[in-house]
């Protein structure tokens, strides 16, 4: 429909071209019969046209989102309108729907195909697999289609939409026990359980701002929870790394390729356990005694390096659980924050009452004290860590900090100081003349 020379450039090169893909759908939409399509037939073409224009002008052409949604829910839909509605009428309204993805994003093709059909019929046929938070994102439909789509999601697909706005956002987890030998707890199960247990928080915004849960099965952090979730659950263990000494020998002998072959593409020379494992251990708690690998587990900081490098020989311990870290967020307003270790270790077993109890304590405090649009991390900074842990009832632990404070500006409380703070100047002056 439009000349899109700049976009055409993006068909070149080996990486899958979204432009080529969009073009195939644009073509298809032209050919679809009327009963296969309910919304704008040339939505894709208009989108490409507007995109090309954005390239020319170096500016977006989407208006500030409007408030649209499905009845009874406070999130899950992002309203979007073009500021060139006359020029590109088919994308005048172009709302997205965030569909709550299944934990760790396995799908049956049945499910996906049903979504595709529904979305071609009621939307643009464009989607994101997946959004950054984790949702399956349906890109571009009109306001009137929102309710029918929601109806179909529920009644046909037996699934729900995700979060947006000041609520619990769609939780996400790594693949964990489904296909990873490192998982220290059941990430899918915990993700699913908390998602469902907190449906109300997910759908009906009552928080000061957004709140994100993410679940990493181990310190490798494959779902990046430490960087982008207000509450980050990371698997760990508190007993000993399991060692298969025969396998260690096989690694040393060069019979097993290290790090499961992750470095195969280059010749790094023969594997050297001393240089590649023992010397790189951050806590320097490993040694070779003869041909036995010895780990001083009490000093291990469970960084995963040795396990990653020799997965056939080493495994996390069996007394596994989670560390909980709080407060990660993107830079707006005060600069980005990474999540801070608040609970060094907790067991993570169904029905997860200990975890829910903690979640609710944190929320309670945040809902009470948090200002509008104040993320948990910012609140923690504002009230300070000592006050925060006091309020949610966590005992102070050196694990919560990299190092103790270097300034001596301790805010003592009156009750901690013998004699209290009320003093009489006359009493003082009886000892000290002016």
């Amino acid at each position, binding site marked *: 429909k439009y000349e899109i020379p700049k*976009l055409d450039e993006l068909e*070149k*090169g*080996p*990486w899958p*071209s*979204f432009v*080529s*893909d*969009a*073009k*195939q*759908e644009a073509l298809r939409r032209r050919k679809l019969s009327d009963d296969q399509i309910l919304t704008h037939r040339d939505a894709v073409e208009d989108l490409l046209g507007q995109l090309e224009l*954005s390239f020319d002008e*170096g500016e*977006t052409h*989407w208006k*500030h989102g409007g408030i649209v949604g499905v009845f*009874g829910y406070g999130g899950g839909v992002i309203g*979007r309108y073009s500021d060139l509605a006359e020029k590109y009428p088919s994308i005048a309204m172009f709302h997205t729907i965030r569909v*709550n993805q*299944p934990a760790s*994003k*396995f799908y*049956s093709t049945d499910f*996906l195909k049903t*979504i*595709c*059909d529904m979305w071609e019929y009621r939307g643009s046929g*464009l989607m*994101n*697999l997946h959004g*950054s*938070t984790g949702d399956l994102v349906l*890109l571009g439909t009109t306001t009137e289609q929102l309710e029918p789509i929601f109806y179909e999601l*529920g009644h046909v697909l037996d*699934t729900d939409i995700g979060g947006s706005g000041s609520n619990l956002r769609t939780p*996400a987890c790594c693949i964990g*026990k489904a296909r*990873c*030998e490192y998982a220290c707890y059941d990430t899918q199960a915990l993700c*699913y359980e908390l998602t469902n247990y907190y449906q109300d928080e997910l*759908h009906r915004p009552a928080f000061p701002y957004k709140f994100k849960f993410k679940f990493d099965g181990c*310190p*490798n952090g494959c779902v990046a929870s*430490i960087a982008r979730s207000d509450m980050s659950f990371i698997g760990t263990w508190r007993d000993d790394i399991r060692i298969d000494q025969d396998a260690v020998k096989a690694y040393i002998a060069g019979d097993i390729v290290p790090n*499961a072959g*992750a*470095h*195969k*593409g*280059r010749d790094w020379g023969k594997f050297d356990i001393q240089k590649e494992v023992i010397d*790189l251990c951050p806590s320097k708690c490993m040694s070779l005694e003869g041909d036995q690998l010895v780990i001083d587990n009490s000093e291990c900081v469970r960084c995963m*390096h040795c396990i*990653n490098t020799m997965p056939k020989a080493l495994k996390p311990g069996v007394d596994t659980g989670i560390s909980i870290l709080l407060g990660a967020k*993107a*830079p*707006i*307003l*005060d600069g980005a924050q990474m999540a801070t270790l608040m609970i060094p270790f907790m067991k993570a077993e169904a029905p997860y009452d200990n975890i829910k109890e903690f979640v609710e304590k944190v929320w309670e405090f945040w809902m009470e004290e948090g200002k509008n649009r104040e993320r948990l991390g910012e609140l923690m900074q504002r009230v300070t860590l000592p006050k925060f842990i006091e309020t949610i009832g966590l005992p102070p632990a050196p694990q919560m900090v990299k190092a103790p404070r270097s300034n001596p500006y301790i805010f003592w409380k009156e009750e901690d100081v013998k004699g209290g703070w009320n003093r009489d100047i006359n009493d003082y002056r009886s000892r000290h003349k002016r």
Partner: protein
Amino acid sequence: KPQENRLTDLGPRHFWEFFPPVIQENYGKWLYHDILEPGILAHVSETGAKVYTVRCGAARFMTVQHVREICEIADKYCKGYVRFTTRNNIEFLVDSIEGLEALKKDLESRKFAGGSFKFPIGGTGAGISNIVHTQGYIHCHTPATDASSMVKAVSDELFEYFKGMTLPAKLRVSMACCLNMCGAVHCSDIALLGYHRKPPIVDHEYISKLCEIPLAIAACPVGAISPDKTESGKKTVKIKSERCMFCGNCYTMCQALPLSDQEGDGVTILAGGKISNRISDPKFSKVVVPWLPNSFPRFPEVVENVKKIVEAYAKGANKYERLGDWAERIGWERFFEQCGLEFTEHLIDDYRLAYDTWRTSTQFKF
């Protein structure tokens, strides 16, 4: 009765329903894995079962047509199951070597009309996986650049690293189109970030209609916005431009304060962040290229700078050493030298915790 016949609070489907049998049977029983070749993982269970995973690159902006093709493949080879990774790759799982070979051949043969691969295999181990990114001009109202196009351009250039495992360690490239940073961009080995460099324009005549002015004022983290009146007496705001740091938070709160500008907007590159706790702590990416222009559609300047960093890293770092750990080991002064990047005053922190970045030591390299 609007609630009648509504199903609400269903939550997502239970994950178990979507697991192929081999996953259901071996859930929690995996013993170890092997990367057979780039993009191909083999996981072995204590039951003796094996599952082979083929990881394929994908533009996460997809049409239903493409998804249908994915389903077709999954139906043919994978018993009707497929998954997506946390970095938007597609994973096809099969439980036999024969299935694997057929699948690989099929995937590699598929190309879009424009010539690009539909299902390039790779993204595992010590290489570069899919670039996670955001909406850009495709769907968002606040971007300072486009996402999908930049990612396509950079991915084309880094393709060999996606297909190979030739780097010292994983190298994660991420992209976000404004400072809201929808993703873990701030902790990526290389982060591409769109951002503005002109203060908002105030839509004086309309602002009082369109926005809650006090909220707009309160939104500014550096207090650059103050109340004002137009000549005609309407409530509006004024912006102290020299205080503004172009974060765009005011625009998020108030549409009458647009920032976008063809000349002002562009890209900054950050480097050296990471997420994993492996060997070293997770860390933030650091700004290493202050600004590059939005050269649509293929961003040659961005591509070139990314390439420089990746190549210097590939050459200089030790095995297992992430980009940021390498930079810290050799020193940031060397990082700039080895990557051929210029160090400018913009790279010196002047925000809240800036003091902690100052060099309070005589240990440095010339």
